[in-house]
């Protein structure tokens, strides 16, 4: 008899039964906590019986572990007993709260006992509604935010810097510009190149007519009849500058002038000293320059 009890098989069996009990307590926690049954007591009774067969420390350790787990549960179960006052039923609470939130139940729920938002849907502002009602339970400090005025305190200089960078000539970037503006296929890139060629032609012609007399830049690009064509002229002329086919300079009166670059002077790419500038024009400015220079006829004939 003694021999059988001490066999490794029996020992293993006892340990396994303990583990089973521990597992069942952990898994069925909610169930065991319920005041409506005695499952916890049953577990303890089983444990008591098992303990009679415990011989080795290993088994005793498991017994101790089971004791810890069940005591924990017992503690919680005891705390649920309230001697007085209404109990707080979380199921009822959620039901009431869902009604308050405006839950719309699905009409064909045959199991009328089921609760929870899973059997309906909440309106969009449901949680907002709760939040608003809850606000008066909080002595929260209102969130502090600056009342931003109408003036924007940031300096505009960063923007200008970006523009300058964009103007920095790399052949690829410039080539992108026409396609972006026209948003169409290669034909328009060719059209731009054609236009640039044409303008170069005008420039050369005027220069050759009188090489000693400088051509005023604004006189060259402005079309007194069309602001948009003026802008296009400025745009196309900039390609000439970029490609080193024309140059701009300031004359003795500090007025911008433009002249074609002599054959032989043309240096491909960026080997010459490059300077960058931004030319801007607005309808107002266009009118002012027109009057100041007394420009009546466009030097660059429209196509």
């Amino acid at each position, binding site marked *: 008899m003694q021999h059988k009890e001490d066999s490794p098989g029996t020992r293993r069996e006892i340990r396994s039964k303990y583990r089973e009990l521990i597992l069942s307590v952990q898994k069925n926690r909610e169930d065991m906590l319920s005041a409506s049954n005695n499952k916890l007591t049953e577990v303890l009774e089983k444990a008591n019986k098992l303990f009679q067969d415990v011989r080795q420390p290993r088994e005793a350790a498991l017994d101790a572990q089971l004791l810890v787990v069940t005591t924990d549960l017992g503690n919680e179960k005891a705390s649920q007993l309230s001697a*007085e006052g209404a109990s*707080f039923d979380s199921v009822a609470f959620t039901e009431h709260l869902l009604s308050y939130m405006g839950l719309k139940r699905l009409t064909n729920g045959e199991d009328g006992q089921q609760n929870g938002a899973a059997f309906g849907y909440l309106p969009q502002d449901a*949680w907002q509604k*709760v*939040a608003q009602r809850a606000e008066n339970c*909080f002595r*929260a*400090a*209102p969130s*502090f935010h600056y009342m931003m005025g109408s003036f924007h305190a940031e300096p505009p200089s960063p923007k200008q810097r970006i523009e300058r960078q964009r103007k920095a000539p790399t052949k690829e970037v410039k080539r992108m510009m026409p396609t972006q503006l026209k948003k169409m296929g290669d034909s328009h890139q060719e059209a731009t190149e054609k236009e640039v060629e044409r303008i170069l032609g005008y420039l050369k012609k005027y220069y050759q007519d009188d090489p000693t007399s400088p051509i005023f830049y604004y006189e060259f690009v402005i079309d007194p009849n069309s602001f948009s064509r003026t802008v296009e002229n400025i745009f196309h002329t900039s390609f000439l500058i970029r490609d080193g086919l024309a140059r701009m300079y300031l004359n003795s009166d500090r007025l911008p002038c433009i002249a074609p670059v002599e054959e032989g002077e043309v240096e491909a790419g960026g080997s010459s000293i490059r300077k960058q500038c931004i030319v801007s024009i607005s309808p107002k400015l266009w009118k002012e320059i027109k009057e100041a220079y007394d420009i009546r006829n466009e030097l660059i004939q429209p196509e």
Partner: protein
Amino acid sequence: MMSHRKKPSNAHGSSQSTSNAGPTATQEEEDDATFTQPSTMQVQKGLEKLTPAQVDQKTAEVVQYFLVKDQKKIPIRRADLVKHVVKEYRNIYPEIMKRAARTFDQVFGLKMVEIDPKNHLYILINKLEPVTGASPITNPTNPKLGLLFVILSVIFMKGGVVRESVVWKILKNLGVDIGEKHEEFGDSKKVVIEEFVRQRYLEYVRIPHTEPVEHQFRWGQRAEVEVSKPNILLFMGALHGQEPQSWSQQYQEAHRAPNSSQSGTSSQR
């Protein structure tokens, strides 16, 4: 009289030296440890060396720091305050805090409260008691407040401690499943156990001997001073169609005389 403070368990040497190595957590402890509360004598002497304008300016900076930090409802650490704002004025720290508290009180109607005397954490709360019943003004509120309110109410009604599984189950019944992305709250579990905990509205503590690991929720230090238990009961009563007094235990708890943790007087420390 300088009080001797416990040397922090830091391998990098004495608490007086500025250690430039080491994790940030210990660094903050160090910063706090290097800050010893100046005596009244020291404060007096310190004030004599400064103009009123300088003290006012520093006070205003502290006030602004608090207000901005409070936007996210994250408690303010004394160590951060001293390191980033007070700086060389730390010898008159108590005077600055006193003035800041007065400013909050008189200008903003707010109370500066030290919710954690051990770790020196501060929050701002409203001086005014909340309106009982529904507010007549409806301005847009953060729906997260509703979520927080539900959890706080459940914890309170259930005696102050609740297992996390209970909370998750209730939320699920309200359409907030922590296993799924919620339309309004996103990762709702994260909001609850990270955001609300960091704000000190909730405490999320491991229960020993649980396998798999389970946690329980309690009210956090902020909730203790900021949330009105009587008003929660009023809402519960309205919701259930019962008198708040019917929950006698909770009613007692809600109306008991405020103890030291609830009295929210601004601290000078």
